[in-house]
């Protein structure tokens, strides 16, 4: 028995099931990060003093990471567009670039975190670092998760292209929606933590 509405749309919703599913999941993710942002606002406004982000964190490095993640969003959507144009080879190149850019993001984060730890700065040191590590740590886990799914579609999962190209295209689109969301969170995280 086939999984229903992976390619054909449901007439009552006007959508395929996977599309609704991923948007519902993203809605829950909005609540997750929203709760942490609310915590940040409360902690910061209630604190007697709060350091400016630039005094604690590396702004040029984070700006570079912002450019990396935005670029990966472009390559992600280009990967989907390539499948729509039935160019599987081009899809592989763009999806590979997306995964690579995600890896670059993680490497930069590794340098950021290890520099902090080497200088005896941990989440337990103060409230700024606690919320910084929590927010960026959770975001980083989402980056890793997204990369894992993207790697699956780049690698073993791509054999679906041969048997059901429309379904494969839709699955890549849904993975792309998650990846764009991860980029979107960073677009808010970056100024909040580093620039204010």
């Amino acid at each position: 028995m086939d999984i229903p509405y992976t390619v054909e749309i449901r007439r009552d919703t006007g959508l395929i099931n996977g599309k609704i599913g991923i948007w519902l999941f993203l809605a829950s993710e909005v609540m997750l990060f929203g709760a942490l942002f609310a915590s940040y606002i409360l902690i910061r406004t209630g604190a007697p003093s709060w350091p400016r982000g630039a005094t604690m964190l590396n702004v040029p490095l984070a700006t570079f990471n912002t450019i990396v993640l935005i670029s990966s969003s472009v390559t992600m959507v280009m990967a989907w567009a390539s499948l729509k144009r039935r160019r599987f080879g081009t899809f592989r190149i763009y999806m590979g670039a997306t995964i690579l850019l995600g890896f670059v993001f993680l490497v930069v984060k590794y340098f950021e975190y290890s520099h902090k730890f080497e200088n005896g700065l941990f989440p337990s040191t103060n409230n700024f670092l606690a919320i910084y590590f929590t927010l960026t740590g959770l975001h980083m886990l989402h980056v890793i998760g997204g990369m894992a799914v993207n790697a699956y579609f780049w690698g073993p999962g791509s054999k679906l292209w041969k048997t059901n190209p429309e379904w494969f295209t839709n699955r890549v689109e849904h993975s792309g929606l998650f990846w764009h969301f991860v980029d979107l969170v960073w677009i808010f995280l970056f100024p909040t933590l580093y620039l204010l």
Partner: protein
Amino acid sequence: MTSDHAVASMTSDHADDIDRHVRVYISVFVALMVLTVVTVTVSRFHLPVPVAVTAALIIATIKGSLVACYFMHLISEKKLIYAVLALTAVFFVALLALPIATVNNGYWIH
């Protein structure tokens, strides 16, 4: 089954549409790069905190909207997705507003 498949193909974009989409993606990418430079530049002016926060949030919202509308195709999505997101927005605002409203020297309680 075949008629549903035809509907699926019809709702998916044709080659010309994709070309137009790709042009939009490149334009959005350039806009996002520019806005990233803008937001970092503005932060260097060391504006008073409320002004800095407002400016940062406005720029971030514009960037986020570009990603949502064009990369995530929200600008041409179905009503059900809009409804889900509208509900999410309501709960998100409540999630942010409720804890802030409990603070004694917050802006809403004296």
